[in-house]
């Protein structure tokens, strides 16, 4: 009986995960807020700032428990919250986006992230275009790059330096006339946006 009880305790202990990695930016669109004026459910901190009315909506994706944001129509733009007071050291002066999304054939998802150097205050906008499949499956990796060379007065950094940055603003829009659904986004330093995900044996 004592052995059985210790086995049960061991099983319980195995299910307590360690803390996961801290991201520069992560959004899963699962926290929902209700607009008091319209009663519509939207992901907290997200709002449509351009495009036709109803161009952005909160939808189920692969399961009733998984949600995302749907952008439809050329010119539909949504803006999201800042990056939760997290900072990241950029080793290569660029950032990487890993997005779980699907888009209609011929439609692209455009992501713009406003990064600010925490130490100098300098800011810069990093952009990238993603062309996800029209079916849910693996995520898509996109490089977000700036128009300005980072060592030249934009956000400091580059291949020979590093910068402590924070994402102050993020926007999504579609290009191509169709619709895109975005379920999950991670932005981090190059090579760090993908994984690691917890192993089924994690914690044992």
């Amino acid at each position, binding site marked *: 009986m004592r052995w059985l009880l210790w086995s049960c305790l061991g099983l319980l202990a195995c299910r307590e995960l360690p803390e996961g990695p801290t991201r520069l930016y992560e959004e*899963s669109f699962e926290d929902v807020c209700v607009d008091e004026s319209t009663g519509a459910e939207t992901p907290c901190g997200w709002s449509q700032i351009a495009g036709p009315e109803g161009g952005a909506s909160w939808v189920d994706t*692969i399961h009733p*428990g*998984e949600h995302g944001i749907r952008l439809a129509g050329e010119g539909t733009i949504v803006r999201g919250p800042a990056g939760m007071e997290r900072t990241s050291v950029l080793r290569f002066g660029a950032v990487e986006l890993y997005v779980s999304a699907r888009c209609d054939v011929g439609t692209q998802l455009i992501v713009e992230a406003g990064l600010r150097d925490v130490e100098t205050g300098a800011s810069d906008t990093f952009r990238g275009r993603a062309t996800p499949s029209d079916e*849910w*499956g*693996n995520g898509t990796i996109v490089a977000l790059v700036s128009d300005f060379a980072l060592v030249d007065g934009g956000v400091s950094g580059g291949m020979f330096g590093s910068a402590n940055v924070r994402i102050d603003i993020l926007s999504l829009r579609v290009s191509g006339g169709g619709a895109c659904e975005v379920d*999950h986004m991670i932005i981090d330093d190059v090579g760090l946006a993908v994984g690691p995900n*917890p192993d089924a044996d*994690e914690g044992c």
Partner: protein
Amino acid sequence: MRAMRWLIVWILWIHAAAAAAQTSDSSFDEGFGDDPDFPVEAAPQATDAETPPADSEDEDPTLEVVEDEDTSWLFSVGALVTAPIEDDWDDALASRGYGNPSPSYGADVGVLYRATRWLNVGLRLAARHRYWLHWERPAATLFGTDVLLSLDARISPGRVFQLGLHASGGLGLASVSLNGERKLRALGRVQVGPLFTFKLTGTLRAMVRLAYDHARGELANDLRANLGGFTFMVGFEVRE
């Protein structure tokens, strides 16, 4: 290490019980003990219990119950584990921060009818559970139950061991849970593989079944999940 120690003790106990059952087989089944008032040699049945030549097994009363014409039913219960095979569904979860799929852990209960000396037919009911961990959310889970029509064919190389093949097929329900929401899906399952039993005592046998499970179906949005794979089942079987 402690689990390994108990596993070794369990295996040794099974072997010891099997050996004890082999040497005292006739006295246990017939209900005779070491009672001096009823020595085995003095009872009329004892004469029949003297070991006949190995060829005339039909006349040997020390044969185990499986050879008895009255044995009709086999009841089994066991635990099973299935190694995961990743598919579209697992890729979609991974892109949302979920980890790799766990093995499926479950239980299996069976009722088989002995149609012929070597063929058994019946039903199995199985339940399985699988999960995908996430750093910040509750784990995604899948709980499934199956009802399977089962056949197995066995031979008995000796009085203790049995070897055979089994095949099962049927339907089940899978309940997939993500962030507190559930979705039900019907899935078919087919499994084939070898089985091995050995007598513990009386009508009780230990059973090991290996199988390849085929259970692949669409869980949501054209995303297919493979809920089958190589399965290991260990349990007990009782004959009536």
